[in-house]
């Protein structure tokens, strides 16, 4: 037995190392937790959280690496100034190369100043954006990445000591960048929006189509779970939908770059997005620590004024609606809700006959004249006959009894067409004089 272990100890160690890691993987594989309200109107987003053991390994790795990354990041300026001082010392010793070295030094300084100016502009833009932004934010510097091709993740120099917590939105002045994942005391992981495991609720600005944003294999964010729609065109802006409880609503995400058909589901498309934020070269970011609005006094005054105006407008609108309702009650309806339902009439060809549109029946005029509907004859004839004439279709002079073609079709056929019956005025209309005219 001893010779077995000594002979195969290499393989045994390999298998033991692999077995331990596979067991570790198996422990980590858990059923993902569905966040039902993640995307309003869309499918649920599945997330998983690390256990304490896994988080400990991440803490060790981050604690091991991030101090060096922070030191490298902070030493950049120091190295630059050290190099400048070295050039200065050389400058004092060698008079013959004074001009050339001065030029070199100036070039270096120019490069430094240019870099500082660029950084100053970026910070100024970030500050301006932050001041105009209503939510509470914490600025942070990017100090490193995951270093793995399967993970689009960055490290920032702010952690739980600065008020950061998991699932906080990370943005730039150009657009959203990602969300905070694991938080350590002085550093934090930020999962970028172009990672394949990320997820954010977004909406297309013009077409108002909602979807889920996540990264693809090429590191580009794309909107998935969208049915094929020809209205989606390249260049359309994409905004956050606000239903995922992470990103506030309306933040810029990017613009549509191209639309691809989903290879797995033919009726769905994938909308590839050109992100608004430069995810490959992030330097400074803002972490939204609270979604509670942080308004300046001027903004609060404006908001109160807006609320007052809005309240008055709502009251006026309610008053108008009430008046319209009262008016609608007083006016007669165009259709009698109590009228019996007539069965459809079948034509000689077996097809149902569509009745001609019925125009509203005009009310009986109290004093009809030649301008009153159907009152042309009555106006020209004797006044005692005018009331019945208004309710009786015009008949040709030959006395055939069929209405003239010029007569409005909408007028219902009067019951007086039957012999022995008299015409009656509508109940709602004033009762005309009973002429007892019989056709």
């Amino acid at each position, binding site marked *: 037995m001893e010779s077995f272990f000594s002979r195969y100890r290499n393989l045994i160690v390999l298998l033991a190392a*692999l077995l331990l890691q596979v067991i570790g993987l198996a422990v980590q594989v858990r059923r993902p937790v569905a966040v039902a309200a993640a995307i309003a109107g869309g499918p649920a987003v599945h997330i998983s959280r690390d256990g304490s053991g896994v988080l400990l390994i991440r803490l060790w*790795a981050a604690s091991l*690496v991030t101090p060096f990354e922070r030191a490298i990041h902070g030493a950049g300026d120091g190295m630059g100034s050290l190099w400048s001082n070295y050039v200065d010392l050389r400058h004092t010793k060698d008079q013959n190369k004074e001009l050339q070295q001065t030029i070199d030094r100036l070039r270096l300084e120019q490069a430094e100043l240019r870099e500082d100016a660029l950084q100053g502009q970026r910070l100024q833009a970030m500050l301006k954006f932050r001041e105009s932004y209503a939510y509470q934010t914490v600025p942070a510097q990017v100090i490193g990445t995951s270093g793995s091709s399967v993970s689009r993740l960055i490290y920032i120099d702010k952690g739980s000591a600065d008020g950061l917590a998991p699932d906080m939105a990370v943005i730039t002045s150009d657009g959203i960048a990602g969300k905070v994942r694991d938080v350590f005391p002085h550093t934090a992981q930020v999962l970028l929006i172009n990672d394949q495991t990320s997820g954010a609720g977004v909406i297309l600005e013009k077409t108002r189509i909602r979807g889920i944003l996540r990264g693809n294999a090429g590191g580009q964010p794309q909107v998935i779970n969208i049915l094929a729609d020809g209205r989606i065109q390249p260049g359309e802006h994409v905004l956050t939908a606000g239903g995922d409880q992470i990103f506030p609503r309306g933040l810029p995400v990017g613009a549509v770059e191209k639309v691809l058909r989903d290879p797995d589901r033919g009726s769905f498309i994938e909308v590839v997005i050109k992100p608004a934020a430069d995810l490959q070269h992030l330097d400074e970011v803002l972490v939204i620590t609270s979604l509670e609005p942080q308004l300046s006094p001027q903004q609060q005054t404006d908001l109160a004024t807006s609320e007052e105006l809005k309240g008055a407008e709502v009251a006026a609108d309610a008053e108008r609606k009430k008046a319209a309702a009262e008016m609608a009650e007083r006016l007669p309806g165009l259709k009698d809700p109590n009228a019996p339902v007539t069965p459809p009439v079948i034509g000689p060809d077996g097809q149902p006959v569509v009745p001609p549109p019925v125009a509203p029946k005009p009310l009986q005029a109290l004093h009809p004249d030649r301008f009153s509907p159907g009152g042309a004859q009555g106006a020209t004839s004797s006044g005692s006959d005018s009331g019945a004439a208004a309710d009786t279709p015009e008949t040709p002079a030959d006395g055939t009894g069929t209405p003239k073609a010029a007569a409005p079709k909408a007028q219902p056929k009067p019951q007086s067409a039957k012999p022995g019956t008299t015409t009656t005025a509508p109940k709602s209309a004033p009762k005309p004089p009973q002429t007892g005219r019989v056709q």
Partner: protein
Amino acid sequence: MPTLIPDYRRDLEIRRYPLYIYVLVPLAAVVLQAWLPRLLGRFAYMDLPLLVAIYFALNRRSPIHGTLLGALLGLAQDGLTQGAIGIHGIANTVCGFLAASVGIRIVVENNAIRMVMNFALTLLSSAIMMGVIRGLLGLAWHSSWLDELFRAAGNGLIGLVLFPALDRTQIRD
């Protein structure tokens, strides 16, 4: 293949390094692997921890040493990602073991052989990661194989510079 088979003792000797090299070089590899993509962006086609694991496994000629160093560096890489712990760990463990096993049997002083080994083992590492992600974790693997080829080529080229530089740090009798 006469030139590939170690036929004299010098080729089979176990290279030894100062202790601080064992500590600083893997640490620097992990730190640089996490920091350089900030400068290079998406063109950071390299896997420095894997390179370091391969180097020490080849030169120590100890499969156990290569296995454990590969596992340690891989787990450190996993700790910096948001994925499951063990993806890089398993891949680097196997690569470290294979590199040491190959180092026992063939001469690995030749730069061309080192480059081919780095290229092949980096591709193998990608394949193992794909197997772990798809097979064990049941997740989708969306990486582009063209990127993996570039990464393997990058590792091969970096190895041409890194390995001779690390050779200078070994303890000579």
